[in-house]
């Protein structure tokens, strides 16, 4: 799949933002006054900035509001609702922390839950797609959640908690690389099933249907840069999880902030791979993956 920058920026930043605000809502980082204002501003900037980035890949962004209508069937629509509800639910907590009034714990819990649900909905947009076998696995939402919570805990300066969450993230990433590499074969789609000619013999491309490019080749059959996949996997796991975990183990606000930046580099690498390594079954028609 084509790793569109808008979607990578969206899923990384808004995931981190919602993860961070989840911990803020639960009172893990008890800040007051201007410090609270700036902390919440960072959370909102990440979440909203990511959501705005996601609209830039739309062909007709002026109609984006229509995307709220199909929550009964569409995870993308549900994600929109969850994000808006979470941002509204978090607002009184942010104001309370800043201006110094109390918000009931039940409300804080609800807002944190909505933030988590938003991340799960984001993940389900990809997980639901059967035609991309690498994504179509229950570990995909676990991975998105692990990124959001580990990154969020790190940004919320939770040294011990983030240490353990980052270790979980490392394990999930490694397991998902292993499982993901086998998903396409497990789905059972081949050029034989795609053309229905598999029982007659070995199917190969004799001639492509068109000599120029098209939307399918650009969007779904992205093969550029896969040769560096192994190096990027190592960079992703080291930067997103291992190095920040070590920094969290040492602790200290300065080092934790550096850890957040290192984690972000790893998260971007991991999310780029998430798209670039994902193979769509339509590639079978073109004899490409």
């Amino acid at each position, binding site marked *: *799949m084509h790793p569109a920058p808008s979607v990578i920026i969206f899923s990384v930043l808004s995931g981190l933002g919602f993860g961070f605000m989840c911990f803020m809502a639960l009172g893990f980082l008890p800040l007051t006054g201007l410090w609270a204002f700036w902390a919440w501003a960072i959370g909102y900037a990440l979440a909203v900035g990511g959501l705005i980035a996601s609209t830039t*890949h*739309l*062909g*007709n*962004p002026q*109609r*984006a509001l*229509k*995307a*709220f*209508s*199909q929550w*009964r*069937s*569409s*995870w*993308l*629509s549900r994600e*929109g609702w969850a994000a808006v509800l979470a941002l509204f639910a978090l607002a009184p907590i942010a104001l309370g922390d800043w201006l110094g009034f109390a918000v009931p714990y039940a409300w804080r819990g609800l807002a944190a839950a909505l933030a988590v649900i938003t991340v799960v909905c984001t993940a389900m*947009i990809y997980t*639901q*797609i*059967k*035609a*991309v076998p690498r994504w179509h696995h229950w570990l995909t939402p676990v991975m998105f959640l692990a990124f959001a919570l580990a990154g969020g805990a790190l940004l919320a300066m939770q040294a011990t908690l983030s240490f353990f969450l980052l270790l979980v993230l490392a394990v999930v990433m490694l397991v998902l690389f292993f499982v993901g590499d086998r998903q396409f074969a497990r*789905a*059972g*789609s081949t*050029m034989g*099933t*795609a*053309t*229905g*000619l598999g029982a*007659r*013999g*070995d*199917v*190969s*491309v*004799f*001639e*492509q*249907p*068109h000599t*120029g*490019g*098209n*939307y*399918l080749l650009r*969007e*779904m059959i992205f093969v550029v840069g896969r040769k560096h996949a192994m190096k990027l996997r190592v960079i992703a796991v080291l930067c997103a999880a291992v190095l920040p975990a070590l920094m969290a183990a040492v602790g200290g606000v300065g080092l934790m902030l550096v850890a957040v930046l290192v984690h972000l580099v790893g998260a971007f690498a991991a999310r780029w791979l998430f798209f670039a390594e994902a193979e*769509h*079954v*339509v590639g079978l*028609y*073109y004899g490409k993956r």
Partner: protein
Amino acid sequence: MTCLPDMTQKKLGLAIDLDTCVGCHACVTACKGWNDQGYGAPLSDQDAYGAEPSGTFLNRVHSYQVQPAQGAAQTINFPRSCLHCEDAPCVTVCPTGASYKRVEDGIVLVNESDCIGCGLCAWACPYGAREMDADEGVMKKCTLCVDRIYNENLPEEDREPACVRTCPTGARHFGDFNDPDSKVSQLAAARGGFDLMPEMGTKPTNKYLPPRPKDQRLEASLLAPLLDIEAKGFAGWLDRVLGKI
């Protein structure tokens, strides 16, 4: 609503005969020609006369080589377009309700004035049936020529999809798969019409008819009988002598 209907009154679709398709791409051009006008945004081209032409098409014809375990390979031309699936994953993922499956005839359509061009439906389709139009930013797909098949301004013989109407070998058939007596149902039953990628669970309406078995054994090369010539006379003598040196 992008929820799928429980059932549709008709199941309009195509039966595509891989035996008679000669891969002429006439269906591709007819489809492009018809969908340049009338229904929805016209299928656009980019850099049409330049170095890297590219464009939106709703139908593409692939050519495959099938090599059996024994005997010669076979070339099979393979038109690929929307299969108007019963369990269309492209419809349920749509966040805006632009994608829908019609209750009356099962045709999967896009309401372009609701489409935000997010591309998720194209990701969800295993068959590559949907292409985003680069000029309009909306998703294009086969409409089964919904603006022809019910169009009373057209002569009756033209009230079928443009690809079917134009096919010079009669490899494409249009009809109702819900009616067991329809031409397409009969063809699919008689010829063993099959689904593409059944493992994806999409339950396609369109059926592909497999190539018929050949009545003559296929030679690896039509020139094979000519390749094994015994040289006679002077040439034969020369052949033997040169072979001994």
